[in-house]
């Protein structure tokens, strides 16, 4: 039984790339384009993990993460932020908002899946991105 990952991403090509790589590695992928839909889907689906694009239109990634962490039933669902913000302050902000870790854009097709798998193995809690 394959694990389901929820991806909240508004750029269709970014989403396609992530889904392609993850499905190749046996995951089932569900995608939504905005934060609100993402929160609803997360609650109904209870995915194995949530991949959250930080640069979302309307409700931004930080707000989505904060909202998701308010729901106790999602307590063991790691939130992995996908962000092009690499600055020190932003990393803290992402983790403070409730993300377990983050993956930097541009997505590196060679390491993307391995990074996700690592986060799943590590479970929830505030972890720094693997160097």
């Amino acid at each position: 039984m394959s694990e389901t990952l929820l991806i909240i991403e508004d750029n269709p090509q970014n989403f396609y790339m992530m889904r392609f790589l993850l499905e190749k590695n046996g995951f089932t992928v569900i995608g939504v384009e905005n934060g609100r839909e993402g929160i609803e889907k997360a609650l109904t689906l209870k995915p194995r993990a949530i991949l959250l694009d930080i640069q979302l239109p309307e409700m931004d990634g930080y707000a989505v993460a904060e909202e998701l962490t308010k729901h106790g039933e999602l307590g063991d669902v790691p939130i992995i932020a996908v962000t092009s913000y690499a600055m020190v302050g932003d990393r803290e902000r992402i983790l403070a908002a409730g993300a377990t870790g983050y993956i930097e854009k541009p997505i590196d097709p060679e390491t993307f899946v391995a990074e996700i798998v690592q986060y799943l193995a590590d479970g929830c809690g505030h972890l720094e991105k693997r160097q």
Partner: protein
Amino acid sequence: MVLDDQGEVIEILSIGSDITDRIQAEEEIRRLNDDLRQHAAVLEQRVADRTAELVIARDRAESADRIKSAFLATMSHELRTPLNSIIGFTGIMIQGLAGPLNEEQQKQMRMVQGSSRHLLALINDVLDISKIEAGQLTLAFTAFALRPAIEKMVGLVSPLAEKKGITLVLDIADDVATVTSDQRRLEQVFLNLLNNAVKFTDKGQIRISCRRDNGHYRLSVSDTGIGIQPEELPGLFQPFHQIDTGLSRKHEGTGLGLSICKKLMDMMGGTIDVQSRWGQGSTFTICFPRQAGDLS
């Protein structure tokens, strides 16, 4: 008073002084005080008016800054997003993940990827120089270990150096430990110097040395490459300067790298210098404080 025999007043003597001057002086003072008060009122009004003008000008400047900052941030995102798609998908295809590629397809995919990476480097450089020129580039200081940072950058260029048959020599002094600086930007400068060294060297070695020098670190990248002509040296750190050696078509570059390095080093309170002999090689040295961030 002088009285006669019958007690009538004959003369009145009095001792007086001529106070005309005094009265006139007091008048003058009163007049000058009034003038002064009037001038002060006029000046006060002028100061108030000028302050109001400056507040408007300052608000306009701050607003322009915010617009510039938002523009650069948006451009950054908008320009990089499609490119990341190109680089990512060609990467997937080259790995064979979307099906096997024949040799020719592999070759052409690699060319597409190479060009895309070059384009991304150009965009990054143009955005950096724009931010710097607009006063929008800010440094973020953290404490980090210098040796691993140097080793990481050297690691990034070793595949290409190996391919060209160039030896990389690391000579980092034992007392090179932590530094407080902008890690990302410092690494950007090291990498730029390393990339240049590999680019302009066809054989021999590149020596990377790092020493502590009182409150500073001094890092040199020394190569046995083609070197730089003396007349090229003054303009080296100016933007859009790319040495035309006739081989320039082989050396893809943006022409912005060294000027960005210079500006970054300036911002960090450091320096960048070059020594070179045509036909023999070049040594680029950066010097930066161990504790940046005490800068205003």
